[in-house]
């Protein structure tokens, strides 16, 4: 098609149709034919070009000139002068077409700055349901290596251990160790479970992996099954994730068809199959023990630990529960080796981490960067800074069970160790930014409302504690608080941390303590308002 020296675009929209564009186009085509230019000049219809009220338009490329107000009687002149003689007839209304100015980026977003895409590298490039594209882009290369190199299950676990991979679901437990414990626990059947409940507010990383690259999870779970001696895996996906469920199911079906799942995977003498279970969207069901209950068909109440799932998990059999993002790292580690994985991130937090940046930022969205990237970079480079040019007040890291960090801690590095040093957590990777006008008291109130709603009610500390905390925060917000309330809140949250049955009640302390510690003034202002009002 590049043999055409000139293209004439004919924008078709309401305005140009009314002005008689089709007649102009027919005349143009006739003129071109009559002058023997059909082989050189091509006429193309396009949609609107955004120029309105100027009658019929003709845009000439590559000259980047557009003519407006064209009538059929003008066409002969245009063809004669412009197309044959190469000069623009001044009697015709024309202007340079500056709608497109080479490849210039006008709406730059920080989200497209260079990233280290590993688990989400293919998700936006490769058709997730086209097996040819999946294989051609390196899908199942990890599984292939296991079979080709005759890697033993122990060797697979060893590779994962050496990579330093740690859980991306919140707690950061070493994945290789979890697999080893599961493998070494006595039991009839063993299970690998992918935790795709993704209930942490502001988090949607797992959804992007499942929607964009579901075969990566199928491969990872097959590798995990082989390593641990599990023949069955479950993908526990929250029910709202309709597209994730659909794409995952398709991937499972395709893998079965290709013999990558089934009674004899790659005819290598091991059986493995996958099944999807839908969750009903309760926050607590993201906790691995509540998830197991839910999988068994019971109410999603958490179990008392120990025993841990690696010894007594699904149906009391040894079970490894792993987060989607954690698993998504596995195929690369096996295919490219632990050494490659360790080149990314920090010594104790190797690899990349996916973050969702939201709240008061210019460019909310998702990035995948190396572990150890400073928080400041996430907020100000990728997120484009605080929206509307306002000042930064705080970032809530890790969702509801997360920690508020003030401006003074913007340089903290986002990896397990650095955050721990600052009494913070990586959590789910959600980074919620709050500007100077946002109220920490309001935010904490809404978090406590979330906890009171999501508490399963099984143990008293959490059932009563979340309610009491909510009441205290409500009083503060309504200007009915007392000075002692702040300490009561802290004491209560600490008490819950020590006595609640499961990590839900235990982690309420995280947002409560950080909010009051770093933003005490804001809480005290609420109390002051109360005392002043009382005096009046």
């Amino acid at each position, binding site marked *: 098609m590049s043999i055409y020296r000139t293209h004439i675009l004919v924008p078709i929209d309401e305005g140009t149709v009314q002005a008689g564009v089709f007649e102009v186009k027919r005349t143009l085509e006739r003129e071109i034919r009559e002058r023997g230019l059909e082989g050189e000049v091509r006429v193309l219809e*396009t949609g609107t070009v955004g120029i309105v009220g100027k009658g019929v338009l003709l845009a000439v490329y590559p000259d980047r000139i557009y003519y407006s107000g064209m009538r059929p009687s003008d066409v002969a002149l245009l063809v004669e002068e412009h197309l044959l003689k190469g000069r623009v007839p001044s009697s015709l209304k024309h202007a340079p077409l500056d709608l497109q100015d080479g490849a210039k980026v*006008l709406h730059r977003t920080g989200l497209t700055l260079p990233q280290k895409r590993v688990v989400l590298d293919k998700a936006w490039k490769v058709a997730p349901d086209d097996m040819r594209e999946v294989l051609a882009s390196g899908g199942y290369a990890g599984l292939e290596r296991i079979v080709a190199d005759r890697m033993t299950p122990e060797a697979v676990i060893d590779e994962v251990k050496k990579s330093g991979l740690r859980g991306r679901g919140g707690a950061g437990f070493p994945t290789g160790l979890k697999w080893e414990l599961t493998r070494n626990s006595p039991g009839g059947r063993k299970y690998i479970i992918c935790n795709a409940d993704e209930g942490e507010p502001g988090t949607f990383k797992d959804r992007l992996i499942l929607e964009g690259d579901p075969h990566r999870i199928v491969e990872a779970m097959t590798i995990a099954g082989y390593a641990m001696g599990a023949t069955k895996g479950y993908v526990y996906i929250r029910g709202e994730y309709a597209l994730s469920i659909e794409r995952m199911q398709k991937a499972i079906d395709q893998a079965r068809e290709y*013999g990558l799942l089934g009674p004899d995977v790659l005819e290598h003498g091991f059986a493995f199959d996958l099944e999807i279970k839908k969750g009903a969207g309760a926050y607590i069901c993201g906790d691995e023990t509540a998830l197991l209950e839910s999988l068994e068909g019971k109410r999603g109440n958490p179990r008392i630990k120990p025993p841990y799932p690696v010894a007594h998990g699904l149906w009391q059999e040894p079970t490894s529960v792993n987060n989607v993002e954690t698993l998504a790292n596995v195929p690369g580690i096996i295919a490219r080796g632990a050494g490659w994985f360790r080149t990314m991130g920090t010594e104790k937090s190797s690899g990349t981490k996916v973050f969702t940046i939201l709240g008061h930022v210019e460019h909310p969205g998702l990035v995948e960067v190396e572990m150890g990237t400073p928080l400041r970079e996430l907020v100000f480079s990728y997120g484009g800074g605080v929206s509307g040019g306002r000042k930064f007040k705080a970032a809530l890291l890790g969702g509801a069970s997360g920690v508020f960090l003030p401006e003074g801690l913007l340089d903290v590095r986002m990896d397990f160790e650095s955050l721990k040093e600052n009494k913070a957590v990586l959590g789910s990777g959600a980074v919620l930014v709050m500007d100077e006008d946002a109220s920490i008291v309001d935010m904490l109130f809404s978090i406590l409302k979330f906890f009171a709603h999501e508490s399963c009610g099984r143990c008293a500390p959490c059932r009563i504690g979340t309610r009491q905390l909510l009441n205290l925060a409500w009083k503060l917000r309504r200007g009915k608080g007392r000075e002692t309330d702040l300490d009561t809140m802290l004491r209560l949250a600490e008490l819950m941390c020590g006595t609640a049955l499961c990590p839900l009640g235990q982690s309420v302390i995280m947002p409560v303590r950080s909010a009051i510690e770093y933003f005490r003034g804001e809480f005290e202002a609420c109390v002051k308002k109360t005392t002043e009002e009382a005096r009046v």
Partner: protein
Amino acid sequence: MKLEELRAIREKSEKEMALRDGKSRIRVVVGMGTSGIAAGARETLKALLDEVAKRELRDVVVSQAGERGLSSHEPVVSVFEEGKPTVVYGSVSAELARRIVAEHLVNGNPVSGSVIEINS
């Protein structure tokens, strides 16, 4: 399926894709995740397919993938071209999709106002 078969299929797919890339000058990928679809990516995809078919652009492949995380810029369309930087468009309406075909794919002039990334 045996290892050898997997390898054979992979190799064949790679060749096919390369062949496809050889035959096809341009690969246009629409982000079809939940956010993309909610923002109208299905209409965008339809417009691209329709416009490419109408113009009989045999060297252009329109494909779909998951999303990239550019939330507020959905629907996102990426144009991959051999030997050229990848151009990523944001907020691609059906109308803009048609313009991308006309101006970028046909004439090689990216539609500037809507480009959010150029990636070599």
